């Protein structure tokens, strides 16, 4: 099992001074995972269950047909959900993010006494290793948010550099009444998410390179790893 050393090299929040920025937030950052390859990290980041586990307050994150799912039904269906992240490429392949797919999530945010639960739908807009882009929106009562994010992996000498950015806009009551807390709260969510992502990746054993290679097989002519990695026709090696 490889050990990933995580280095917080840079983490920026939307702090540029502009008087109309206040419920629009921009976050971006870069972190490095040592002793890992782009493929390994990409594989880990392909697993919705891993993301579900990393997202603070996330009850479930599941693929759905369209951007207007029945959250009550989903809640019922996934009430006792107990799915573990895995490092098994076969398993990941079954459920890996796919470009154009929509995912529904219930995310409870907890900022002291303020505990909105957001019904969220995210769409994978682009997914082409090593780059991924997603956008989505969530609503909780008469508050809502819209976000768009991208992530780019860059293989360094002995590790992977993950560069990411998220933009979010908040609407409704929280935007209006919660001015003082929105930025730090969102900051906290983003920070916790990425640090959990790193923990999750760190805890995997997928870095045993062999696992990944062994999985090269059959069915789809792109090969399972290509599928997981979101490569189209292996053109991006």
């Amino acid at each position, binding site marked *: 099992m490889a050990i990933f050393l995580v280095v917080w090299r840079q983490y920026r929040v939307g702090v540029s001074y502009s008087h*109309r920025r*206040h419920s*629009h937030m921009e976050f971006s950052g870069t972190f490095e995972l040592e002793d890992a390859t782009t493929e390994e990290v990409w594989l880990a980041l392909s697993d919705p269950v891993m993301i579900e586990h990393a997202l603070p307050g996330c009850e479930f994150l599941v693929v759905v047909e369209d951007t207007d799912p029945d959250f009550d039904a989903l809640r019922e269906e996934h009430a006792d959900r107990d799915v573990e992240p895995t490092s098994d490429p076969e398993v990941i392949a079954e459920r890996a993010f796919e470009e154009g797919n929509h995912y529904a999530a219930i995310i409870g945010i907890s900022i002291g006494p303020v505990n909105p639960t957001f019904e969220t739908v995210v769409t994978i807009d682009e997914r082409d290793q090593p780059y991924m882009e997603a956008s989505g929106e969530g609503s909780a009562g*008469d508050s809502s948010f819209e976000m768009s994010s991208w992530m780019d992996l860059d293989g360094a000498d002995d590790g992977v550099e993950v560069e990411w950015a998220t933009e979010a806009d*908040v609407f409704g009551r929280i935007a*209006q009444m919660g*001015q003082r807390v929105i930025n730090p709260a969102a900051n906290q969510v983003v920070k916790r998410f990425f640090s959990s992502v790193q923990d999750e990746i760190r805890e995997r054993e997928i870095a045993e390179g062999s696992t990944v290679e062994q999985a090269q097989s059959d069915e789809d002519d792109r090969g399972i790893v290509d599928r997981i990695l979101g490569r189209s026709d292996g053109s991006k090696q």
Partner: protein
Amino acid sequence: MGIETIEADELDVESVLGSAVERREDPSLITGEAEYTDDIQRPNMAHMSVLRSQYGHATINGVDTSDAEAMDGVIGVYTADDLDVPGEIPVGWLLDSLETPVHPLLAGETARYQGDGIAVVVAEERYIASDAVDAIDVDYDRRDAVIDPKEAVEDDAPVVHDDLDDNTAFDWEIGDADETDAAFDEAAHTAEVDLTNQRLIPNAMEPRATVAEYKPGTEELEVHMTSQNPHLHRQLMSGVLDVPEHKLHIVAPDVGGGFGSKIHHYPDEALACWCAMETGRPVKWTATRTETYLTDAHGRDHESHAELAMDEEGIITGMRVKTYAGMGAYLSTFAPAVPTYLYGTLLSGQYDIPAIHCNVVGAFTNGAPVDAYRGAGRPEALYLVERIITLGAREMGMDPAEFRRQNFVPSDDFPHQTPVAVEYDSGDYEPALDKALEAVGYDDLRERQEELREEGRYLGIGLSSYIEACGLAPSELAGQLGAQAGLWESGLVRVHPTGKVTAFCGTSGHGQGHETTYAQIVSDELGIPYDDIEIVEGDTDEIPQGMGTYGSRSAAVGGSALATSSQKVVEKAKKIAAHQLEASEEDVEFENGDFSVAGAPERSMHIQDVAAQSYLAHDMPDGIEPGLEETSFYDPDNFVFPFGTHIAVVEVDPETGEIEFENYVAVDDVGPQINPKIVEGQVHGGVAQGIGQALYEGAEYDDNAQLVTGSMQDYTVPKAEHIPTMETDSTVTPSPHNPLGVKGVGEAGTIAAPQAVVNAVTDALQPFGVDHIDMPLTGEAVWRAVNDAPDAGAEGGDEAIADGSGGKDGGEN
């Protein structure tokens, strides 16, 4: 300190006018006996709550009210589809180029700002109504929004009203463009500035509220509401709800401040009425402060470019102004007048300027509608004038007081015609300036300023020589300019058989003390003791007609109406007295309530006795009807033009941007003062609001048109610690064209103060080369201005400022 009040029983009719008598409004207000709208209870009363848009701009695909309707205690939930009345909010002022898109009571397909109502709930209790609003589910498609008035009229801006080509509400100009351009072509010196007059939220302490009750038997709709002008509301609401005017009874009970925000006709009050008719229950609606922030018409919202042309000596030869004015999502009642006729016409300030041209583009945005807020147009004008004048002085290297003095309209040039349409009635500007300069010890201050700069301390002196046009009136002129209403005022003076008086006025006070000052006027005119006179306002069933209280018009127009009616009463009484004294009318003199025969003072009769005789009617002159009451509809010839000079003295800490007041002096000329204590109070309050704008206040929307200063935790309403002690003084230049000579004071402070403060701060920071900072001058804004200033480096720069040694050499500039 300040003016000492006297008790009512110390008054006599000879000196009642001009006395600082205690307010008779106070006893009910300081004991809790006062009745504000939300205090009103009715048997079986229900409560209304409004669901407002989650977005600044959105398409509404559907509204699911089923959960709300199913809640215990919910009487009804209604959306735009349910409304069966005309329901279009009218615009009360039209301009040639004005676009007037429909403003519905409830948003149907499109929400254009966050205050847009989408549904209303009527429930048994206010808490339940609020719960039910939360249970309504709206299917929105969010749309891009625009909030900045200048960006709103650019080609690629999201369009607020789909049925319009763009967001231009109007494109208006005043003055002579060619002459003005010529003045700039020939100018020896020019000054210019880009400035923002930020959006403000009025924040009357009492939120808007309505109690509506419908009586099916008489088909009468009785409405108690927070109104500055119940008659105007009656007129407008009659059309909106299709209820005949004579069946609408509107009462403004005690009203907790307005500052303009309770002039306008909003959807909510009409919705409460509709709900009362629909449910057959008395319905109460009281805005939460959040709703106040979202829906009360905001003020200001200008972005301007101003230029000043001067000759070699610094004599002003021209002024050119381009302004983008935000209108918000819809045109509020008087909105089109505010950035045009109430703004452009004041751009000459106190100065003799031969050529002025001003172009104003009004823009629809996704913000709350913008309308009259204390000062309405005039603070925007005077802020701009007094900023550019200050920069003109700076350009000329002249002392700002002397620069002003040399450009003032001379005292022998009144009435003075400006190049921007209005004619100033009377004025004498230098004495007010001199008094203010003397009060602050101007020359010594300038010396001290130099000394302090040597120590790295930054003292600033800011002048504001302002003018205002108030006493909103002449109807004919207002009509020519686009008003959809007359601006006269009605006054009815009724002398009862006992000699007591009830006087009715169509204005509607909400803190100004009309019951006191009007009684002083009537007492003075009739010679009847002050305590025998009762004033009634604010009830459309009691008072025949009226236009309301705004634009500092109550004393000048309403007071004049009462004075005129009183004079008519005296005229009639004189006929009766002459008859009873068996003298000819020409021989009867009237003084302090007594009619007496010239040369035979023992043959006299008091007006209160005449009143008794007029009702007895046993012995009346031929052709004179019994009774003693008179009505007048007073319509003056012109606006009145109060003026004055305010000076702020501040010290600025460039390290933190903190501003401390050392002094604030206000010298105002509002004509003769009916009650100097009340005048002083109006100046204090106005200045506080002006300081609020200068230093603290600002409504901020984000790029999605979400109001992010949506509570008192985020929008600063100044606290006691934020407002300095003010020194007030006055000069008196009567208006020649109203019977009292009075001018108006309600808005003076708000019009005068912002630029006094900003001029003081920029004066303090002159060594850094800071010419202008947009309001509000928060600590951060000032700190950034210092650090970004051209001379920041020369004066010590960032590092030097950070370690406290910044700008030590400032005094040498």
